[in-house]
């Protein structure tokens, strides 16, 4: 059971990088970035190829650069080419499927069983310390911490404020003599770098990449983000970012426990879909309830 929980923690932490990416694009910039699935796989594929070539540490920045490129294309399509933001995400996602297979050398599966990854490299480094058995968790936790610190600092800069304002009131950004197209591009580049890093780490931790490693990731991350929002509904950026990570870990724990009670593994994506539906539709339906109540009781009052 302990090992199951540890795996859940590790998967939650790695996946939370994607959740933090959506925290930036969905919560801050108000763009639902549907290229997330493809970008996640892109990061996994690029990271794996670089690691297999013998550069485990270089694989991380390489994956992030690939993510930046992917985010750049998605952003340019929606800000400069007049393509709807949801549609540009879908288009990039589709295009990335071919690119990802090309990156993996025409194969849809890469194996890293004998490859030196960031995890195996650190496993040796940590073997003498108290963290010996938890090297994967340590790596994931370090990455998550760095990303949260980065976000907390970045979103307080002038550029970060402009990105937040773009999601909040684009008119106001324009009148502050900042081009909202520019802030959207920067925001999506940064968020996709995190998504790709997330994919890269997941691939290396499970020592393989398949072309569908990222499928459904946007819904899973969104579910985690919305669970996280329940933990930290308000407060500063750092608190809400930590909330997002907690959401991702909780999601994985619940999933792990459900698997223990014989829920089939293929149910993961249905569960995440249902969570997203409940989290978004719930507040809406609640706000509609008085009207519904009025409809049902109309004409039945005492005359």
């Amino acid at each position, binding site marked *: 059971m302990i090992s199951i929980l540890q795996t859940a923690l590790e998967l939650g932490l790695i996946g939370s990088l994607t959740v933090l990416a959506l925290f930036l694009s969905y919560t801050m910039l108000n763009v639902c970035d549907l290229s997330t699935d493809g970008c996640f796989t892109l990061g996994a594929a690029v990271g794996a190829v670089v690691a297999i070539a013998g550069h485990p540490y270089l694989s991380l920045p390489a994956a992030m650069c690939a993510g930046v490129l992917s985010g750049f294309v998605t952003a340019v399509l929606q800000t400069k080419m007049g393509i709807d933001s949801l549609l540009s995400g879908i288009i990039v996602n589709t295009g990335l499927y071919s690119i990802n297979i090309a990156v993996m050398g025409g194969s849809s599966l890469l194996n890293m069983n004998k490859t030196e990854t960031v995890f195996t490299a650190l496993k040796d480094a940590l073997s003498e310390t108290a963290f010996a058995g938890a090297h994967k968790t340590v790596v994931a936790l370090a990455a998550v911490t760095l990303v949260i610190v980065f976000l907390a600092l970045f979103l307080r*800069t002038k550029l970060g404020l402009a990105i937040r304002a773009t999601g909040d*009131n684009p*008119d*106001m950004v324009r009148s502050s003599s900042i*081009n*909202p197209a520019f802030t959207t591009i920067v925001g999506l580049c940064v968020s996709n770098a995190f998504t790709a890093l997330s994919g890269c780490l997941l691939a290396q931790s499970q020592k393989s990449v398949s072309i569908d490693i990222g499928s459904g990731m946007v819904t899973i991350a969104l579910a985690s983000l919305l669970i996280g929002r329940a933990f930290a509904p308000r407060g500063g950026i750092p608190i809400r970012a930590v909330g997002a990570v907690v959401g991702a870990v909780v999601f994985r724990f619940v999933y792990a426990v459900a698997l223990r009670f014989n829920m089939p593994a293929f149910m993961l994506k249905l569960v995440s879909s249902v969570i997203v539906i409940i989290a978004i539709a719930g507040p809406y339906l609640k706000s509609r309830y008085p009207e519904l109540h009025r409809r049902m009781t109309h004409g039945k009052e005492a005359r």
Partner: protein
Amino acid sequence: MLTIRRISKTFNPGTVNAKTALRGLSLEVADGDFVSIIGANGAGKSTLFNAIAGSFFTDSGSIVLGGEDITLAPEYVRAKSIGRLFQDPMRGSAPGMTIEENLALAAGRGGWLSHVSKADKAAFRDRLALLGMGLEDRMQQPVGLLSGGQRQALTLMMATINPPKLLLLDEHTAALDPATAEKVLSLTKDIVESNRLTCLMVTHNMQSALDLGNRTLMMDQGDIIYDVAGAEREKLQVSDLLVLFREAAGKNLDNDRMLLS
């Protein structure tokens, strides 16, 4: 300061919905002028502001601000030298961000990666205190919690924190209750005077059109039909404006809100 030469704008050209909103309008505004603009619904007052601010490009003509031709400059570039307030108090500030963050964005000091400095915070505080609304003690609260009047006053502060070459006020008190509108209007007057701003103000209130500023324009069908300043303007009453409008436009001023106010 502002020179507009024969600008025209037709929306939906070549269709049955074609509407010419500006017809070869020319306007010269001197440095430090405070111009009030009145006119019936659809006269082209807001269209004129949109043209100056760059919400769209005009079909012909040129716009020169402070010696710089801005006819084809994008909106966000013009925003460096033009401050603008809309009727809707919600349009000028980001509701999910704090007062301090909104002011920091409007001030736009420092490079892209700079944080708000202590000196800036102190300066924001002093500025907010001038509004007399107690906002200086609420700098860490989200702007969404403010009332319409407070938000419009904050927007006014944001638009003028770096004194712009030109301030455009598009019925910026019309959505506020009378007492708040009065307050925001007097703040406007103070800020415009103390910064010696050049300002154009659209208003539906004929009395404030005459009370505020040093020049009044009347617009109809996309052009300026009457332009008055100086001693002649001093003598004008609201009733005179109605008569003048009828003479210049050949019809009654039919802005319902004007007649009611």
